[in-house]
């Protein structure tokens, strides 16, 4: 099918202003405000303590200080939170601080220097409590309780009698009879896998500017948020205001990866501007971003799998513990999604599992690319690889044999009956890599001098590993997830799209431009987008859960089709033609039959405006999913669709230093239809880099609730020297219900890399690392043992 822009290489609509430096991120807006004040936040000195006293008197005397706020200034303030409102805006006297990010006071001053000076002079008296420093401690009997008793009762989803006051919630899963399945198996293989706390490290940290409209009692905030309307609601409820009193406008966003879902600067700024009636800005530094905002949940994952001699899976049982830290954030949902991804994309007739989100005094676990499915990918793909090794079956063959096909059932009992391309991703990646699924994995010779390692032939080991993953995208689980988009013709002869969808760099703005371009058959240059604004654009849902292309893409497509319908309706009246005779192209509407019936869209728009008719379209995409049964996790459709991804990775291991170099990566990605192929590749490449970090170099090191490495010299994200070139094949068996058959790919593109690396390391040196990151000192220690 010949397409205009969908599936074509088209330049991203926001790239130009980013390469010139003209794109306006939050901090670039400061000069628009006269007399902006500077805020600094005083945070908890201890990760688990009661605040007994706070004395701001000395701080208030610093010249330039305007006001210092504490909880006592806002007695009506309520807690906030994405799912459960358990997080205090400001910790008050005799209240608890539960992690180092808890806010105790807000210093507002004429200059940043003054705010910094004043903050240092705030005196705080605390009563220290025992720190719940991790999962094992949190689950001990007699362990200190991070949240009060009453909280726990309100938040247990299932079993209020479940032991342990630090369990925020638990989820169960059951299909079939695992005991019968284990009995049938020739082998039962058990494994435990551990993943670490990770930080999303978007290059732009949290920043915001707010202003106050006294006349209308409206607070406007310019700050990144992955979901404008949800942040608006959270801020409003915390402050006891109406939603309309909080207006959030989207600046350019410098990356998110889940970190910009939770409230950060928003409520603090709103409080200050409403009191002071002057604009205020709050800019985090990198350390603060590490300390105060969300992390990827550290997890302990246990699998017990029954398998026959021939490699058929008979039963799979899972237990998942996630360290959700001091506050719930997305924890309940992360642990739910984790559990529902427990087996990976493999047919298993009998499944059972439980997952638990556990409170500790660590930095809180929230959303990070993959949302639990990433940690699970490492676990099940290591486990499957181990099964292959024990059965002496080629790892690709074992995966190929068991992978989902049309008619397969997910752990939730959802039958996959369209666009099931797991097998195709295995075959696609294998072909790129030269892996013969029936035989040899085809690891090519790698010249040691071409690697970044100093090893020579004597002390280098090479290996190849594979991982195949699945990702159910969208919120699913019966959540009323939807996106609304609007489209109109403007006086400036453009087509304007109105959507709140946050573009955090992943490219949703370009995708929707292409979709409109395709439907209206008009050059992308004619299309403009407004900036997201809670007050002028409708809810598009979150830029998360890999949902924007699918949800907002469909909403925009529908809006464009709605507009097209309106164009045809009114044009046919103008022309006196029948509908089938009409078409649009390049900004004109015309009749096939009579060449005189031809008008520019904007001329039509003008004519109609004079008659008091507005030419616009609206689309709402509201696909149905079902809430899983609370006891068994089963439902007809839990996620709108699943995306599959296989990666093959070649590694070189330096036996003298334990260093691992990733040499080649081959990707087979199930995309349905790549609306912007270059954009999809960009997601694969970026996702792979994050996977390399997760596998080898990244770890938020926390001791007794204190982050030991809150900076970029000790928290190591991959540099250009750590990432290889990546080869990928996009598998486009359009058949998904996404726009033009597109599937979501933002998160699936990061999940396969870490397990593929771990499996490659096993292939290279015969040692399986079940815990991430695979640090050189651990590799070396294991090699010495041999």
């Amino acid at each position, binding site marked *: 099918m010949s397409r205009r822009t969908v599936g074509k290489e088209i330049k991203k609509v926001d790239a130009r202003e980013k390469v*010139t430096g003209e794109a306006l991120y939050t901090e670039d807006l400061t000069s628009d405000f006269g007399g902006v004040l500077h805020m600094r936040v005083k945070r908890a000195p201890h990760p688990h303590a009661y605040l007994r006293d706070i004395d701001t008197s000395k701080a208030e005397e610093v010249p330039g200080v305007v006001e210092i706020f504490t909880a006592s200034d806002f007695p009506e303030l309520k807690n906030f939170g994405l799912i459960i409102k358990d997080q205090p805006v400001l910790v008050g006297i005799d209240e608890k601080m539960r992690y180092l990010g808890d806010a105790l006071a807000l210093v507002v001053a004429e200059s940043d220097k003054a705010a910094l000076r004043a903050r240092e002079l705030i005196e705080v008296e605390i009563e220290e409590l025992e720190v719940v420093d991790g999962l094992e401690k949190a689950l001990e009997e007699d362990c200190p309780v991070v949240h009060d008793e009453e909280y726990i009762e309100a938040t247990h989803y299932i079993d209020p009698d479940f032991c342990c006051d630090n369990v925020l919630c638990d989820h169960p899963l059951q299909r079939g009879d695992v005991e019968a399945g284990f009995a049938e198996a020739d082998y039962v293989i058990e494994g435990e896998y551990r993943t670490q706390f990770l930080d999303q490290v978007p290059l732009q940290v949290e920043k915001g500017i707010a202003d106050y409209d006294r006349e209308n009692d409206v607070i406007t905030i310019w700050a990144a948020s992955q979901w404008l309307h949800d942040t608006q609601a959270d801020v409003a409820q915390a402050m006891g205001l109406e939603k309309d009193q909080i207006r959030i406008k989207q600046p350019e966003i410098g990356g998110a990866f889940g970190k910009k879902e939770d409230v950060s600067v928003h409520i603090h700024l709103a409080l200050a501007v409403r009191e002071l009636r002057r604009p205020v800005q709050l800019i985090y530094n990198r350390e603060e971003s590490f300390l105060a905002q969300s992390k990827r949940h550290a997890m302990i994952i246990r699998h017990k799998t029954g398998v026959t001699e021939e490699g058929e899976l008979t039963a799979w049982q899972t237990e998942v513990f996630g360290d959700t830290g001091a506050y719930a954030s997305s924890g309940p949902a992360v642990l739910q999604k984790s559990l529902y991804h427990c087996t990976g994309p493999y047919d298993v007739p009998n499944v059972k599992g439980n997952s638990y989100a556990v409170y500790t005094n660590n930095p809180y676990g929230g959303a990070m690319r993959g949302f639990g499915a990433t940690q699970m990918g490492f676990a099940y793909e290591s486990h499957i690889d181990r099964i292959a090794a024990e059965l002496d079956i080629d790892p690709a063959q074992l995966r190929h044999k068991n992978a989902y096909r049309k008619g397969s059932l997910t752990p939730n009992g959802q039958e996959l009956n369209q666009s099931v391309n797991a097998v195709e991703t295995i075959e696609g990646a294998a072909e790129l890599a030269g892996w013969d699924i029936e035989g040899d994995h085809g690891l090519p010779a790698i010249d040691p001098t071409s690697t970044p390692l100093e090893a020579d032939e004597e002390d280098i080991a090479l290996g190849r590993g594979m991982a195949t993953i699945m990702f159910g995208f969208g919120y699913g689980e019966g959540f009323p997830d939807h996106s609304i988009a609007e489209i109109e013709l403007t006086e400036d002869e453009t087509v304007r799209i109105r959507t709140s969808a946050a573009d955090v760099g992943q490219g949703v703005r370009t995708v929707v431009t292409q979709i409109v371009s395709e439907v209206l058959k008009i050059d992308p240059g004619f299309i403009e987008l407004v900036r997201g604004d809670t007050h002028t654009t409708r809810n598009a849902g979150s830029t998360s859960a890999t949902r924007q292309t699918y949800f907002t893409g469909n909403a925009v497509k529908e809006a464009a089709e709605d507009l097209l319908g309106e164009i045809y309706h009114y044009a046919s009246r103008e022309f006196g033609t029948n509908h089938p005779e009409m078409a649009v192209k390049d900004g004109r509407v015309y009749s096939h039959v009579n060449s005189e019936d031809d008008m520019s869209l904007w001329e039509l728009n003008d004519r109609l405006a004079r008659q008091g008719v507005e030419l616009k379209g609206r689309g709402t995409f509201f696909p149905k999913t079902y809430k899983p049964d609370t006891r068994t996790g089963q439902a007809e459709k839990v996620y709108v669709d699943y995306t599959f991804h296989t990666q093959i990775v070649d590694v070189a291991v330096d036996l003298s230093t334990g260093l691992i170099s990733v040499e080649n990566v081959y990707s087979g990605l199930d995309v349905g239809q790549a609306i912007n192929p270059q954009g999809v*590749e960009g997601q694969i490449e970026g996702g792979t880099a994050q996977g390399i970090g997760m596998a080898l170099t990244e770890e938020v090191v926390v001791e007794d609730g204190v982050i030991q490495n809150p900076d970029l010299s000790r928290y190591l994200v991959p540099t250009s020297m750590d990432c290889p070139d990546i080869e990928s094949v996009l598998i486009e068996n359009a058949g998904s219900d996404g726009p033009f058959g597109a599937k979501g790919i933002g998160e699936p593109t990061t999940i396969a890399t870490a397990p593929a690396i771990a499996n490659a390391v096993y292939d290279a040196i015969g040692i399986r690392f079940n815990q991430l990151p695979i640090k050189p000192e651990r590799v070396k220690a294991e090699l010495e043992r041999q």
Partner: protein
Amino acid sequence: MEITFTINDEERTVDATPDQRLLDLIREDLGLTGTKEGCGKGECGVCTVIMDGEPVTSCLVLAPQADGAEIETIENLAEGDDLHPLQESFVENGAVQCGFCIPGMIMTAKQLLQEERNPDRDRIRQALAGNICRCTGYDKIIDAVEDAAQKMSGGEA
């Protein structure tokens, strides 16, 4: 103290204090907000500008140290509506996602191409190692620099 320097081919004299960083001088005093701050400690490369022919992290240069220096920022590359070949190449090759690393990345790349007309991929990777990108995985950034090198060495102005 008063300092004088050339920035983007223009001579400027401003008041600077030692507790001010070159990054702040550029963004606040001169209003050139194309250069960003990512970490404040020279660890991410986001704030890279060219100073006296070398890429530097402007968060680690004290404002008074710019006295007598020649400084170039991202704002200097486009000529009116015409983009610099590097900027064009970044756009065409899909090398821009969130864009926050891009001004610093382009400045380092510009200096590389000033010193070497046709660096290979390994050399480009090495030169850009001090510019962290979290979105792209670097592949398309390297494609873009290679592409720009060809444009710049192939066609004479």
